[in-house]
């Protein structure tokens, strides 16, 4: 379902297999477990690490496992509820995060990509697509919160959510949703790892990095249940550093 490897200072989480990487309870749990391992490894590795999430095959992720959920509202809500803590894990991760979008990323899969700090995407194939409006499903509140936090260019949010626009990498880059476009999946993964190495080389303190991320995106963090440190706790941290 997903594998984790460490290449120097960079952790690479791969969604394995040439399937849609549908976010089922099992896959979400597997990814969370890998992310938890990364956080633990980072603590002992010290400052200067980064995470790259990459998919094998034609899909990054086609979203929540709606096929398993079928018409059951309980099942669907259960999946929505299960994805939120994974989003929180990523927003709280004490290192820079990069999504190597090596295939289609739709709905929950698009959201997963947005939960990363940077996005590199293949330009030859694949789209980013918030399909909910086309399927007739409302957007969960935390989805909206993350979308609003990360997609701020004029009309971009409307096009993505209200028009169900399918974005190729080049368009997504123009809209500020993707940071770089690469020819194919191998180049995308390579570029993502290269960026990860550059960011890891900055030797940032992971705890501080995550704290700063939260102060940049507080509403998204609140929506997924992350409680930001108080100013008082930050003051104590400053003192302890000196």
């Amino acid at each position, binding site marked *: 379902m997903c594998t984790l490897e460490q290449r120097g200072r960079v952790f690479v989480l791969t969604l394995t297999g040439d399937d849609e990487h549908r976010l089922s309870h099992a896959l979400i749990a597997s990814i969370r477990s890998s992310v938890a391992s990364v956080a633990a490894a980072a603590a002992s590795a010290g400052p200067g690490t980064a995470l790259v999430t990459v998919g094998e095959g034609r899909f990054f992720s086609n979203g929540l496992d709606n096929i398993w959920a079928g018409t059951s509202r309980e099942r669907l809500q259960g999946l929505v509820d299960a994805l939120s803590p994974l989003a929180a894990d990523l927003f709280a991760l004490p290192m820079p995060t990069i999504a190597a979008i090596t295939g289609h990323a739709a709905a929950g899969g698009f959201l997963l990509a947005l939960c990363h700090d940077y996005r590199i995407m293949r330009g030859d194939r694949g789209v980013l697509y918030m399909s909910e409006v086309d399927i007739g499903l409302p957007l969960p509140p935390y989805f909206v919160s993350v979308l609003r936090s990360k*997609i*701020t260019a004029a009309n971009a949010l409307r096009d993505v959510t209200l028009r169900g626009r399918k974005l190729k990498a080049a368009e997504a880059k123009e809209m500020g949703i993707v940071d770089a476009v690469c020819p194919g999946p191998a180049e995308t993964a390579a570029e993502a790892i290269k960026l990860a190495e550059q960011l890891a080389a900055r030797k940032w303190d992971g705890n501080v990095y995550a704290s700063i991320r939260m*102060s940049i995106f507080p509403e998204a963090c609140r929506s997924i249940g992350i409680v*930001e440190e108080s100013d008082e706790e*930050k*003051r104590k941290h400053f*003192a302890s*550093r*000196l």
Partner: protein
Amino acid sequence: MANGDLCSVVKRGRVHLITLTGAGEHRLNPTLLSAIRSAVAAVRASPGAGALVLAAQGKFFCNGYDLAWARAGASPADRIAAMRAALRGLVADLLALPVPTVAAVTGHAAAAGCGLALAHDAVVMRASRGFLYMGEVDARIKIVDFFGELIRQKVPDAVARRDLVMKGEKMTAAEAVRRGIVDKAVDGGVGDVVDAAVAMAEGLAARGWNGETVAEIRKAAWPDLWRKVKDHGGEAPARPRL
């Protein structure tokens, strides 16, 4: 240190120009912050004032909080808290000011110094030298609530905000203009930047806006920021209506 050693105030027509004096880094310790706040209060109380410009001499606009001063104290945490509180008050003073404000970023503006520039209505920046640099991530310093709000309100683009604050990118004036962080890049030396800022301020003053209206509209435009700083400043009685 007398206030006159730290910043000067001159009038150019209806524009009140506050200059951080000397060739140093204009680090924001309580003494300098107090001097700036006094100067701003004097502008507020001046019946003929039409606009405010904040500029600096030398290579630096403002290089952030005086961390050396903080470290030298018995309780560095208390000293950083004091500087943060004073900046919070100054931001409130600027938000509540009944005249338009322009920051003339004549040199490097880092961390709290960058924030101070952004707290003005408009920012002009020297094109040939100097960076905007939110160095907190590199210096391992967390960002407190009001400061995070200042950045979110004044740098609404998610990518620009991420690159400035989470990546600690050093941005030239051209780059800052391109990303919508700064209004204008000005060629030439410090004097040219100041002249451009004064010209812009004079243009705003010439609109003849009612001061109370300017202050109220500004607070309404940045309501979340105002809410987070209003208890710390901006409370001096406004000029009496003529």
